[in-house]
């Protein structure tokens, strides 16, 4: 069996895909990649349909395959080397059998992605291959795990793309939600004026954000009947610090919601590193629909934005890190 072996793994490396919609009624949220754009970028760089990838939460790991395979690196940029030679991020590469791929910590953002040609040949659980940690589906990968590689019909490598900017916080567009009007008007106004910071508490279920001073707690918040939760919902628990719920969130909840981040801005939420500044702006439904249409258009257009990775040696500050004479380099990059 050919496979990708995990030699060493960061604390939050999981297999992810687009998740499993359809089980909400049974208490299972859809889950899937925290940054759907990065999943699509990885697929585009390998010229294959969107499928599985390894999601690297904050830190990568060391990997080796016993057969030659293609890889793409996307999402939060991380320092990566192949047998010691630096690899360009947001690009696809050939990985020879036995070569060691080393991926370090995120230099910006949170979630990096390693996509392999053909994807991982894993069996589905409830219609998807992604780990859903809070539901106990799948697990965080450990050293020694071997991920079977599916047959790879593609050949494209040496491609690069310019990522959509989303790794440094910024403005989030918000629609009103079920309890928005329960929050006093001055509180809602303050919510759109203040600069929040992403707290260190956060995971695939949701991220906590810190207001600069006063919180957003509601005394009437304890008597709300539990209702469905959707990714993007901004819940305010008793301590007044908002949580933005992500794809692996609980399916119902009773804490009041001040609004919902639109789907197009969720990758930006996922990729906001601890300390990143976040702001909120209420938008009209028309503006949100326009953003959604634009978001889908960009995803569809992604394969067309991928271009060959050609590096001009005169423009390479890291030129000396390549052992050009011996030829044991990431040679594809120089073609």
């Amino acid at each position, binding site marked *: 069996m050919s496979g990708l072996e995990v030699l060493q793994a960061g604390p939050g490396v999981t297999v992810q895909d687009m998740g499993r919609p359809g089980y909400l009624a049974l208490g299972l949220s859809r889950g899937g990649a925290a940054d759907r754009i990065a999943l699509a970028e990885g697929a585009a760089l390998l010229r294959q349909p969107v499928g599985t990838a390894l999601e690297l939460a904050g830190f990568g790991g060391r990997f080796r395959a016993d057969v030659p395979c293609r890889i793409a690196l996307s999402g939060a940029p991380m320092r990566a080397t192949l047998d010691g030679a630096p690899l360009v991020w947001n690009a696809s590469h050939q990985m020879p059998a036995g070569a060691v791929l080393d991926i370090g910590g995120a230099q910006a953002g949170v979630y990096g992605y390693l996509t392999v040609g053909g994807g991982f040949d894993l069996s589905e659980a409830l219609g998807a291959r992604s780990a859903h940690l809070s539901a106990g589906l799948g697990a965080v990968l450990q050293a020694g795990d071997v991920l079977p590689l599916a047959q790879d019909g593609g050949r494209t490598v040496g491609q690069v793309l310019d990522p959509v900017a989303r790794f440094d916080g910024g403005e989030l567009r918000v629609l009103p939600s*079920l309890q928005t009007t329960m929050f006093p008007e001055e509180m809602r106004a303050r919510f759109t004026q203040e600069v929040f910071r992403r707290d260190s508490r956060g995971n695939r279920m949701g991220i906590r954000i810190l207001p600069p001073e006063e919180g957003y707690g509601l005394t009437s918040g304890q008597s709300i009947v*539990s209702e469905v939760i959707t990714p993007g919902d901004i819940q305010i628990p008793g301590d007044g610090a908002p949580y933005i719920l992500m794809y692996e969130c609980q399916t119902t909840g009773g804490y009041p919601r001040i609004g919902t981040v639109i789907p197009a801005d969720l990758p930006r939420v996922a990729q906001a590193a601890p300390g990143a500044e976040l702001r909120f702006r209420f938008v009209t439904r028309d503006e949100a629909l326009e953003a959604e249409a634009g978001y889908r258009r960009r995803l569809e257009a992604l394969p067309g934005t991928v271009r060959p990775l050609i590096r001009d040696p005169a423009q390479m500050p890291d030129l000396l890190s390549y052992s050009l004479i011996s030829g044991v380099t990431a040679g594809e990059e120089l073609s």
Partner: protein
Amino acid sequence: MPDDILAGCPRIEPIGLDGVIVRFGEALSEPANRAALAFRAAVERDVPEGVEECSTSLVSTYLRFDPLHLSLDRLTALLTERLSAEDWYAAPLPEGRRLLRIPTVYGGDFGPQLAEAAQAAGMDADAAIAALSGARVRVNAIGFAPGQPYLGTLPEAWDIPRQAGLTPRVPEGALVVAIRQFVLFSVSAPTGWRQVGRTAAPLFRPGSEVPFLLRPGDEVFLDAVEAGAWDRLAADPKGGIVTEPLA
């Protein structure tokens, strides 16, 4: 029907860009839960084009749709029309429901807060076990975690509040009680509700042929069994549960 609970309902409200909920009440009540279940069943029998998923919470039906292919206005109009076609509060419960008898060990290590909960309900522990195990409850909603049921409604005496603090962790299968409802935990989790017992109910078994044990609308007895039965229940893949169809 008490007007204050159902005031202004049913009501259709957007949630996020791609969802609407149809809310049948502001607080849990039997008619509102019944309406939510029945309305969802009706929507699923004839799913409007563009609707991708449907679920219920305690008193509302949720629909997720593709907002670029079905406008909120159009969906709202459609749902309004369906709402007015029938008295959903009086609608029969969906078909295909079942009655499950789930063996439960009450008290002791299996229900460390039984005495506390009994006291809050104004009775002694034995009376509490008799009341709780004798109550026929309905799965009002599945939610929070996979396969995890909210079961109600318990008799008035069980309108007891959540505890002030959180229990850091109850085990899988824990039966907890508050506000005239049970929750049966499908995973180990923290809770603010009091743990009165434990079951071996296989609520979520992703690898098995039936990954989810309960569905909204099912009815349940949490029958009291002796602590000595626990090992046998835990070893049984079905947790000792007996299921029969409900007409």
